[in-house]
Structures are given as structure tokens and as C-alpha cells.
């Protein structure tokens, strides 16, 4: 399978340790690739380099074999792009923004596709841009990226501002794009989001790609915070002994712990007491990575290919 994206030693050095450094990455055509990292890690810098908006300090990148810097116009014929933040279009109506940007692409505007996407995203294109909520602006951005059925979708934090229903719709749209053979490169800082749609994920930290892995290989770094309230005695020893359970603390009738991997062993241990309430929540990606790298005792990890 040919590569949709290939970056070789791609570097953008803003100075002071900021930027992107020596990115070597290959994304095969037809793959949905998640690009994960905390804020300021270099995700948007990577995307802007791929889109030819900024110039690399060294190294380079290709999209379907086309040089992102030397052949930007040809590259963009193949790409649908959602920036991290949609620009202001003031008094233009949504329908006019769509028509205007479609005009820049040339060719016939596929009204049926626009209708289909606007319908499933429940986006009223009659409204003026300034009247749109943040979520609706994001839907408009998605429509603009998807409407010409590009071979490659580059999406910078695409689900930001979407409600859960529209997030699900977006995941379906990505899945449909993959089924028709498109490649999707999406950045995110939400682990569970990329888990929904991606086949592989690259993890970037402080401007360096630290890991490329298949989704199923990432389970070992995931964990949940769990809080459990008991009616009576807390079965603390059974919980401590459960596989994957860590950082157990007891305060009266409340037990808190963290769980890696599946919940089965913990639930079995909890059965020994009378549970009145239980809350589980996923920590932020940054928290996950901080914990992961602290645990791994590695302050400057080398890139690891796990796939």
C-alpha cells in the first residue's frame, strides 16, 4: 500500500525548545491515523507543515508522493482540511461560505453532498457566520473539509465544540471516508476520541514523536480513576490484591484507586463489600502521559514503533 503521508526528519524549530523536531512518519493510504499529544506538543505545527502553510527548518514531507512545499497546489487538490480554529466570516451566510470556498477549488459544486452532510450534522446554512454557535462553526468546518470527498482528510482537533450526538456522527463520517478509501489524519488530545475511530496513533510530546502504535497496543498506558462508596466495611485488602489496581486509598467508607486494563478484577474485589456509589472517570491525556512517562522514568524517550 502506498503512503498517503510521508515525513522525513521534518523539523520546525521556533527556538527555545518549541516546535517540531525530526519527525519521521509514514501513514499508509486508507488508514485513519490519530495524532495525539497535549497542548503545545507540536500537533498543529505538524499539520501546518503538511499543508504547506509554514516552511520546515529542515527535512520535508510528501502527500501521495507530492512535495508539500514545492507542490502545494497539487497537494491541496487531494486534501480536505479542518483548521484548529475556523476563521471569522462575519456577515456571510453559511451557504455563501460553502459556495465561496468551493469556488476556490473550482469544478462543479456537489449540492447533493452538501445537503447530505448539512442534514446529518443538522447545520442550518441560512444562518450568518457570526450567528453560529461554536459547535455549529465546527460543523461548518467539517462540511467544508468533507464536501468534495478528498483522498486525504487532515483534521486539527475535529470534535472540539461538538455535542456527543454530533461527535458520534463525526465518527461515522470518518468511518465512511475510510470505507471509500480515504486516508484520515486527525489530531486530538482526547485519548478516547482517537480510540473510537483510529487504527493507529502517533503520540507527540514536546515536539518529538515518542510512540507510534496500533490502538490495541495502547491499553497498557490507559487507566481510570475510580471512587467507590460502601455502606459498611471497605474490602481494602481484596482491592489491593486485584490485578491492575493501584494507588488504593481509604477515607472512612470511601475508597479511591486507579485501574489499568480491564475492570473485571476490581469489580470482583468490590463484590466483597456493599457498594452504594461508584464513579469512574478517565484522566486527561496529559495526565495519562505524565503518569506513563513518570512511571517509565523516561524524561526524553526515544520513538518506539509498536505496530
Amino acid at each position, binding site marked *: 500500500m502506498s503512503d498517503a503521508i510521508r515525513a522525513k526528519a521534518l523539523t520546525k524549530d521556533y527556538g527555545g525548545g518549541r516546535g517540531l523536531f525530526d519527525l519521521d512518519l509514514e501513514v499508509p493510504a486508507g488508514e485513519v491515523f490519530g495524532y495525539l499529544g497535549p497542548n503545545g506538543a507540536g500537533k498543529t505545527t505538524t499539520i501546518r507543515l503538511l499543508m504547506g502553510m509554514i516552511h520546515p527548518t529542515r527535512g520535508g514531507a510528501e502527500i501521495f508522493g507530492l512535495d508539500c512545499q514545492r507542490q502545494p*497546489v497539487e497537494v491541496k487538490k487531494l486534501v480536505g482540511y479542518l483548521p484548529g480554529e475556523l476563521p471569522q466570516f462575519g456577515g456571510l451566510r453559511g451557504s455563501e461560505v460553502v459556495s465561496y470556498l468551493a469556488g476556490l477549488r473550482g469544478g462543479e459544486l456537489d449540492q447533493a453532498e452538501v445537503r447530505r452532510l448539512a442534514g446529518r450534522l443538522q447545520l442550518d446554512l441560512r444562518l450568518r457566520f457570526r450567528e453560529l454557535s461554536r459547535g455549529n462553526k465546527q460543523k461548518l468546518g467539517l462540511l467544508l473539509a468533507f464536501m468534495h470527498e478528498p483522498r486525504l482528510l487532515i483534521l486539527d482537533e475535529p470534535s472540539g465544540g461538538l455535542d456527543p450526538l454530533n461527535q458520534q456522527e463525526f465518527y461515522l463520517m470518518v468511518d465512511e471516508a475510510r470505507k471509500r478509501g480515504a486516508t484520515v489524519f486527525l489530531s486530538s488530545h482526547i485519548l478516547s476520541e482517537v480510540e473510537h475511530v483510529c487504527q493507529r496513533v502517533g503520540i507527540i510530546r514536546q515536539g518529538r514523536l515518542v510512540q507510534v502504535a496500533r490502538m490495541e497496543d495502547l491499553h497498557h498506558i490507559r487507566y481510570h480513576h475510580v471512587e467507590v462508596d460502601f455502606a459498611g466495611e471497605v474490602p481494602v485488602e481484596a482491592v489491593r490484591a486485584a490485578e491492575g489496581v493501584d494507588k488504593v486509598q481509604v477515607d472512612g467508607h470511601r475508597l479511591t484507586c486507579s485501574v489499568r486494563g480491564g475492570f473485571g478484577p476490581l469489580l470482583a474485589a468490590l463484590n466483597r463489600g456493599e457498594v452504594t456509589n461508584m464513579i469512574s472517570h478517565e484522566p486527561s491525556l496529559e495526565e495519562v502521559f505524565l503518569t506513563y512517562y513518570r512511571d517509565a522514568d523516561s524524561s526524553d524517550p526515544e520513538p518506539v514503533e509498536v505496530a
Partner: protein
Amino acid sequence: MFRIALRFGRGGLIWTSAFGVLVGFSNTAAYGPVAGTTQASRAAFGRQMAAIGQQVTYLLPPPTRPDTIGGFLLWRGFGTLVIAFAFWALLSAVGATRGEEERGLIEQWLGAGTGRARLLAVRFGTFAATAAVAVALTCLACLLGGAGGGAPLEVGGLAGQGLALWAVTIACYGLTLLVAQQLTSFRSGAAAAGGVLLVLFFLNSLTRTNPQMDAVRNLSPFRLFERSDSLAPGGHLDLGATVVLVAVGVLSTALAAVLFRSRDVGGAWLRGRTGHREARLTASTNPVIRVPVLRGLWEQRIGLAVWAIGLAVLAGFLTSLVNTTVAVMMSNPLFRRYLQGTADPHVAFLGLYWFSFAALLVAVFTVVQVARWAGDDLQGRLELVLARPVARGQVILERALTLAAEVVLIAAAGALAVAAVAAADGIHADAGRLVGATALLLPVALTFGAAGAAVAAWLPRTATTVLTAAAVLSYFLQELGPLFKWPDWVQNLSLFKLYGTPLSAPVFWNGVYAMIAVTVVGFGVAMLAMQRREVGR
């Protein structure tokens, strides 16, 4: 909050102060050399100014003792300054309300625990403070100009006039805050409040010659400002009118705060219910949006129409004043020399009077366009455009062609009005020269546009400032150069000088070539800079 408001208002403060200083200094410094040093020459000068002043009462108050520097400054300087300061108040007030609401800043301020009434009170107080600084700097420039030009000003009278200027400025600010509560965007707010201020301005200026309208005139803050004439000998500061102006500012702000508290953020105070509408799920079918250049014209269609109509009205009006103004000028030896030796003084004056002004207006229009280009970049629209298969050079080319098409449209509207009124008034302007003079406005615009495009492609944040400075400097070089007999090479630095006087004199081809050269180089540099630079917020 005060510091934030101060920071947001610093651009307006700097530009308005700079304008005030330029107007104040140039008028006072020029008075001595122009009016002469003898009582007789100043009396003659005063008579001519009075005669000219009668022709422009639609804009400026009739002069009071223009044979003195105080009277002249009151008429020519403060008559202009009040318009500029009111414009500043308008933009500042709409920016502080609707502009910041559009950018989501008002939500931030309110979310941080700032009360709505306090928010408006702080903005009003901050603007009053910055307006005081701008007025003080303007007055200082007047004093220095007068002293330098050998005609010192009386400090007390100047201070009184400055106080009246400050009062009318904050009154306009308060009124704009009030009007803006009913509109939901910066553009509509600026248009509506601008309309209200314009009506109040003309309510005063157009009824100046009708004593029966005095009661109505007093409704206008501009009339209340004019009631103070402390700069003129024997004049006084009308304390009552000044207090009323301050009260108008304070009460309007208070009422605006009440309306602000009872409306939604981002909404109008009075809001009608909208009926159920079917959602639209398709793109616009307007074909113009998809055609290069035409889409730029279409996007700015309302602004273009306003510019074209405004230019036509102004052109027609100024042309209608040519006959009487030329008659006055020919009776004054000082002004007669400007028109002597020309084949037809009326056509010569029309060329100077309208087309020099039209070149300035076209430059202002170009600055507005450059500000749009810079805004495209800074607000991320350029990034979205370049995410399509569009070459960077194509963006620059389309901007240039759109600017050219727009200037042709508005210049043609002005030329048609000039031709119609000139024919009606018996001014025999040659049709070919009229077309030529109009066509030469295009290179003027493209010269400014090319310079702006080069700066916007390189440093978009500074583009508007740099180009505005270039336009203002060019204008003042052209205006003051002959007055102070500056060397030719200094005067030729003015881009307006390159335009020449093509209605009454042969085309200044060297100037045209220079403008074409600047256009080619400027847009070429813009293309190179755009290729090399990085795009994105």
C-alpha cells in the same frame, strides 16, 4: 479593567492625537506666512476667508474674525477637528460594545465578575481620559505652531475651545454607546450610530443660515460645541452648553448601561420574534460568489455602493461650488496667482478642488482594502483559502484586480456626477480630459495598493498603520510643501504629487511612470513575500 480599556484604545488615541497635532500645528504655523504680518494683509485675508467660509457652511461654521489666528484656527482647525474627534468617538464606542461582543470579549469580562454598568462606566471614563490627552496634545501643537509661525495664541481661549472639543467628543461617545445597544454587529452598530451622528451634524450645519431653526439646532451636540468661540477675539466658552454636552455623554452612557442590563449579550435591546423557518441545507447558488474578482466585489457590494454614492454626491456638491469659489478667489491677489495663466480658471479650480480630493479619497479607500487583506491573514481566512488549490501569487493578483475594479467603479460614479453638474453650471470641462483625470485615479490606488500589499504580505499587523502613515504624509507634503517652499525633491515624495493636475494641465507622464513602477514592484514584492512567509495564526 481600566488598563485593558486603555490598552484597547491606544491605537485610536495615537492616530487621533497625531491628526489633531498635524491639523493644529499646520494651521497655526501656516497662518503667519499666508495671512501676512501687516494688519491690512490680515484684514484682506480675513475677508477672503469669510467669503470662502460662506461657501462651505454645510461643513464648517461661518468664520468669526478669520483675520486673527484665533478666529482662523477656530474655523479651519476646530471645525475640522470636531468631525475627526466625533468619528474617533463613534469607532471607539462601537468597538467597545459590539466589536468586543463579536470577539467574545464582553463575555470574558462579564464572566470575570465585572458588572455590566461598571463595564460601560469604565469604558466611558477611560475614553474621557484618553480624549482629554488627545485634546491636550492638539492644543499644545496649536500653541507651538502659533509661536513658531509668529502669531501666538491666547492660552485661555485655546483651553476653553479644547474643553468644548473634549465635551462634544465624549457626548458623541455616550450617544454611540446608547445607539449600539439596539444593533447586533460592529458594522451595523457603526452604520446606525454614524447615521445618527451624521443627522445631528447636518441638523446643525444645514440650518446655520436659518435663524428660525435655532431651537432645533440646539438639539445637536455639534451646535452646542459651536456655541463656544473662546478662540476668537471677544468670544467666550459657553459653560452651560459645555456642561450639557458632558451631561449628554454621562446620561447616554447611564441609559446605555440600563439597556445593556436588560438585553442579551450579542442581542439587540428590542428584539422581534422570528417565525419558524426551514433550515437551509444547500450552498448558495449565486454564481458570482464562485468567480474570481467578482466574488470580491459581491462581498463588498454594500460598502462599494456607499462609497460610489458618497463620492458622487460629494463630487456633485463640490462641483456646484466651483463658480462662486472661483469668483471669490479671482478677486484676491493671493489666490488669483494659483489660477492665473490657466486657460479656464473654472476647469483649473475643478481639477485642484475635486480631483486632488478624489485622489485622497481613493487612497483612503485603498487603505480600507489593505486593512481587509491584513484582516484576512490575521483572522485565519487566508489559511482557509490557501487550504484550497490556490497559488499564493494568485491571491495577490486577485486582490490587485479586485482593487482595480472597485476603484474604477467608484471613480466613475464621481466622474459622472462631476460631468453632470459641470454641464449644468456651464463649466466647460473637456470630456477626454475628464475621463483621463478619472482614469489616472486608478494608478494612484494601485500605487497605494501595491505598497500596502507588499507590507501586508510581509508584516500584516503593521500594514494598515504603515499605509495610513504614507497617505497622511503624502497629503501633508502636498499641502504644506508649496506653502513652505520645500525643495521639489521633498514635494515629489508625495504620492499625490505624482498624480498632477490632469484635468487642466498635460498629463504628468513621469509621475504616471513612477506610479506604474511602484505598482509593479510593490505587487511583485508582495508575491515574493507571500511565497516565502508563513501563514496561520
